[in-house]
C-alpha cells in the first residue's frame, strides 16, 4: 500500500505521463485500496455479507419495523402454541412470541459485540504499535504478556472474568460482558498490528520523516499507522463476529447477559430442556445467531482476500 501511494505522490506533479502505465486507462495508477475495492465489487460473498449485516443492523436499531409484538409480553395460555398471525415461529414454554424475541435479541448482541471489539481494538492497537515501533526489551515484555494471555483457553478465562465483573445479580450485565470479551480478545489484533508496524517501520518514507525531525508519536500516527492498519481492521471485523458468538456462549452458560436482557444465547439455553415438546424456540435463535456470526466473518474474509496481493 505504502509504496504505491508514495510512487503516485512523487510522480503526479512531474511532467505529463508519456503513456498508460498499466495498459489500462491513462489516469493515475490505482492504489491498493482502489484495487481491493474493484476486487470486492465483483465478489458475491462480499455483497451477501453486506446485505446480511445491513439487515441485522436495521433489526438492532429499529426492531419494531420487523415485528409489532412485544417480546416481553408473554401469555401462559399460549404455552408451546404453534405459529399464529404475528408469531410465525410460534410460542415458547412461557408463552412468549419466539419471532419477536428473536428479532429483539439482535440489539444486545450487537451492542456487546461492537463495544467489546472496540475495546479489544484500542488495546490491541496500543500494544501492537508500542511493541512494533519501540522493539527491544519493551517488545519482548509485551510479547511475553500476550503469550500469557493466549496461554489460557478463551472460554475458561472468560468464565472466570465474567464471574468477577458481574457484581449486581439483577442487572442485564452488558458492561461486564463487554469488559470480559474486550480484555480477552485483543491478542490476535495486537500481534497483527505489531508485525504490520515492524514492516512499515523499515520503509524509506518513515526514515525520511524521522530525518526531517518528526517526533515518535508523529511518525507512529501520521506515517506508520495509516499504512499498517488494513490487516488490523480485517482482524477486528472477524473478531466482531466471534464476539457475538462468545456473548451467546457466555449467556448460555449463565455468566453472560442476564435478567431483563434478551439474548439469543439465553433463548437457546432456556429452550434446551423443552426440545422434546417444541424445537422452534431453540432453532430460530440458533439460525439468527449463526447467520449473524457468518455475515461478519464473511465480510472480514472477503476484505482480506481483496487486500492480499498474493492471491492475485
Amino acid at each position, binding site marked *: 500500500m505504502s509504496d504505491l501511494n508514495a510512487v503516485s505522490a512523487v510522480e503526479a506533479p512531474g511532467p505529463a505521463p508519456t503513456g498508460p502505465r498499466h495498459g489500462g486507462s491513462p489516469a493515475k495508477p490505482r492504489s491498493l485500496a482502489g484495487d481491493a475495492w474493484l476486487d470486492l465489487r465483483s465478489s458475491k*460473498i462480499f455483497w451477501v455479507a453486506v446485505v446480511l449485516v445491513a439487515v441485522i443492523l436495521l433489526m438492532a436499531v429499529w426492531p419494531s419495523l420487523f415485528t409489532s409484538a412485544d417480546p416481553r409480553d408473554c401469555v401462559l395460555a399460549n404455552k408451546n402454541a404453534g405459529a399464529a398471525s404475528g408469531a410465525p415461529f410460534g410460542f415458547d414454554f412461557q408463552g412468549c412470541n419466539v419471532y419477536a424475541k428473536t428479532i429483539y435479541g439482535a440489539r444486545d448482541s450487537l451492542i456487546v459485540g461492537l463495544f467489546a471489539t472496540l475495546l479489544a481494538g484500542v488495546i490491541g492497537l496500543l500494544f501492537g504499535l508500542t511493541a512494533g515501533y519501540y522493539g527491544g526489551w519493551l517488545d519482548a515484555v509485551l510479547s*511475553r*504478556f500476550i*503469550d*500469557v494471555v493466549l*496461554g*489460557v*483457553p*478463551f*472460554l*475458561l*478465562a472468560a*468464565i*472466570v*472474568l465474567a*464471574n*468477577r465483573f458481574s457484581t449486581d445479580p439483577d442487572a442485564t450485565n452488558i458492561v461486564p460482558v463487554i469488559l470480559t470479551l474486550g480484555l480477552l480478545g485483543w491478542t490476535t489484533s495486537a500481534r497483527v498490528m505489531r508485525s504490520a508496524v515492524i514492516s512499515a517501520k523499515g520503509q524509506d518514507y518513515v526514515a525520511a520523516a524521522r530525518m526531517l525531525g518528526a517526533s515518535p508519536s508523529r511518525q507512529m500516527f501520521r506515517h506508520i499507522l495509516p499504512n499498517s492498519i488494513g490487516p488490523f481492521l480485517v482482524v477486528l471485523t472477524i473478531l466482531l*463476529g466471534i464476539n457475538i*458468538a*462468545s456473548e*451467546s*456462549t457466555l449467556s*448460555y*452458560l*449463565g*455468566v453472560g447477559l442476564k435478567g431483563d436482557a434478551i439474548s439469543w*444465547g439465553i433463548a*437457546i*439455553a432456556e*429452550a*434446551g430442556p423443552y*426440545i*422434546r415438546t417444541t*424445537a422452534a424456540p*431453540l*432453532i430460530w435463535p*440458533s439460525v439468527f*445467531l*449463526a447467520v449473524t*456470526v*457468518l455475515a461478519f*466473518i*464473511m465480510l472480514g*474474509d472477503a476484505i482480506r482476500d481483496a487486500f492480499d496481493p498474493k492471491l492475485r
Partner: protein
Amino acid sequence: MFRYIVRRLLQMVLTFFGATFLVYALMFANQDDPYQALVGERPLSESQRIALNAQYHLDDPFLVQYWHYVRGLLTGDLGTSLTQRRPISEMLAEAWPITIKLALLAVLIAAVIAVSAGVLSGIRRGGVFDNVTLVITLIVLAMPVVVLAPVAQVVFGVQLGWFPVTVTRDAGLWDLLLPALVLGTLVIATELRVTRSSVAENMRADYVRTARAKGLTNKRVIGAHVLRNSLIPVITLIGVDIGALMSGAIITEGVFNIPGVGFNLFRGIRAEDGPLVVGFVSVLVIVFLVINLIVDLLYAALDPRIRYE
C-alpha cells in the same frame, strides 16, 4: 535442539505462573468477606475463624495464599467442592476418562476429514470441489458451539432418532459419535484450510517439479513428497485445537449430559461453585500448556528451521 527445549521450558514456566496467577487473583482477590462466604448465613465465632484460617490460610498475605494454591495444584490437592461436598481431585479423576475418549474421537474424526478434503482441494485449487469446501468451511467456522450442539441434538437425536439424546458414564463409541462430531466440527475448518493452503504451496515447490521430472507417478509425488511436507504445519494446529476443544467440551458435555470434565465445570458455573470452577479451570490450563509444549517440541523435531531459529 537443546537450547530450543530450554527456552521453550522457561517460557512455559512463565506462562504457567502468569496464567494461574490471573485465574487465582480474579477468582479470590477482593472477595467481600471470605469467611462469611465459607460459613454461609450462620454467624461466625472466633474459634471457627481460627479453624478456617488454619484450613484456608485466609489471614496470610495475598502472595502467600497464591503460593498455597499453586502448591495444592502441583500436589493434586484442589480443595473441596461447595455443592458436592467432595474433594475436587476425586471428581476430576472420575470425569477424565470419558472426556479423553470424547476428545480423541473428535480429534480423529476432524483429522481424517480435514486432511483428506484439504489435500483434494489443495491439489485442484480453484476447482469446484475447492470452492465448495471453502464455502462449507466458512459456514462451519461461523457456527458457534451453542448453536451446533443443541441443534444437532434436536435434529439427529430427537427428531430423526439416529443417535441417543443423552450419554451415560459407560457409553460406547456409538453413543459418543454425535457429540464427538459436534466437537470435531469446531476444529475441522481451520485444519482443512491449513492443509489446503500448505498442499497448494508445496505443489508449486521445486522439489515437486524435480520429482515429476524424474518421472514419478502423480500418486507417488503427492503421497510421498507433498503430503509429508504439508502435514507439518497441521501438527502445530493440534495445540491450538485443544484449547478450542476444551471450550467446546464445556457446552457439548453440558448439552448431551456427558458426565465428563466439561459437564462438571458447566454444572459448577451454573451452581456458582467457586472452588470447583477454579480447580477445574486451573487443571485444564495446565493440560493445555503441557500439550502445547509437547506439540512445539514435536514441531521442532520435525522441522529443523524452527529449532535453529
